[in-house]
């Protein structure tokens, strides 16, 4: 039986991620775990994240999960979500925080104070709600998902990958930004697939069956 581990490092709500994975992979064992042994045994790993990146990184380091995660990242399929995506990069502007460095690039905050939306209203930060993702590169995880589908976002920071070839999804909020990234066995999204209804579930389903 496939073992999928949702990494529990004490931050945020992991339940909804696990629920969505269970819904699309009833045959798999979906485990919310902060045990190094479970990470080692996992076939694939989901790294969620909520809240502030400095706190998330600190929890990962203090729990000793960082090393296990880095080791897994060499070979296993990994899916990063939201702050779990941001942590994969080298560095974040949020609290001047060093990331895991699995993806070259940085994480910065929306600077939209001086801009107005098309209807004249101001841009709110966090961006909260449903926005479109343009699939600017083909990827097996996009299978069965229409280009420009809507996904659910909640975030104030976003990733800027160093290499354009890693960006597989792009979204517009005052500025175009990278909303999905892929590199070898890693796929990560700024949006929340577990809260994006059918298209989100499809993305997780594709991840379950992905063999990079």
């Amino acid at each position, binding site marked *: 039986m496939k073992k999928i581990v949702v990494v529990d490092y004490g931050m*945020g709500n992991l*339940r909804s991620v696990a629920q969505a994975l269970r819904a699309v992979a009833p045959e798999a064992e979906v485990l919310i775990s902060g045990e190094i042994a479970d990470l080692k045994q996992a076939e694939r790993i989901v790294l969620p994240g909520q809240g502030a990146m400095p706190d998330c990184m600190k929890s990962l380091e203090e729990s000793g999960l960082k090393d296990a995660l880095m080791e897994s990242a060499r070979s296993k399929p990994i899916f990063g979500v939201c702050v779990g995506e941001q942590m994969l990069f080298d560095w974040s502007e949020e609290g001047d925080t060093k990331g895991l460095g699995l993806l070259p690039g940085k994480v910065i905050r929306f600077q939209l104070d001086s801009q107005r939306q098309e209807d004249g209203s101001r841009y709110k930060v966090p961006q909260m709600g449903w*926005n479109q993702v343009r699939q600017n590169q083909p990827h097996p995880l996009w299978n069965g998902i229409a280009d420009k589908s809507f996904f659910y976002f909640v975030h104030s920071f976003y990733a800027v990958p160093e290499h354009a070839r890693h960006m597989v999804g792009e979204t*517009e909020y005052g500025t175009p930004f990278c909303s999905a990234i892929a590199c070898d066995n890693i796929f990560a999204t700024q949006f929340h697939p577990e809260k994006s209804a059918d298209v989100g579930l499809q993305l997780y389903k594709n991840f379950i069956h992905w063999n990079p």
Partner: protein
Amino acid sequence: MLTKRIIPCLDVTAGRVVKGVNFVELKDAGDPVEIARRYNDQGADELTFLDITASSDQRDLILNIIEDVSSQVFIPLTVGGGVRTVEDVRRLLNAGADKVSINTSAVTNPQLVADASSRYGSQCIVVAIDAKQVSPGRWEIFTHGGRNATGLEVIEWAKKMAQLGAGEILLTSMDKDGTKSGFDLELTRAVSDAVNIPVIASGGVGNLQHLADGVQEGHADAVLAASIFHYGEYTVQQAKKFMSERNIPVRL
């Protein structure tokens, strides 16, 4: 482009969805999971559950409801009603809520907003404000279902909540709630223009034009309604189509 959200609101007591006018004459509106699933199928962008249970023995029922709903419906869920401590926030998030709405306790203990948002992140802390107009251009906060005046001015309060770490404001007009005469647009616009976080307009929706007005006149980022959806007057789909025809970006 970020779309404007339509959020059906479900009042829950003793494990059932109910609807009343100004908290009296509650009528049974159905099973929470069934209703949640129906709204999800209609394209609702989020769901809000308000626990209006008075008795604390029945309080845990909302946790069971959220657990059931979150295992079957994969859109954001906000839960409010009787949230007093960081521990309450934790329990709701663990049950499957994505956001927790804090109302009276934000007034009696603003530190709760700061503590909860620093622990769980601003993205999951919604501050609910019940506002009543006291003079032209001035609204004040009321608690306990509109019975208790606090003397706090709404716009300053909303700014303060954003500063303390609220990720969103759920703004209800006590004057309009239950009247079906539309949102208090002046209030909604004043608050939405004053803060940098999203504002959900609530209270008074009677038809689809009211929803469109909330966004276009009130500058709301999201609109919340209960009865027009519960009793099948309109579907969420109809609401979205209506808004889309008026050039409001929505997820169709």
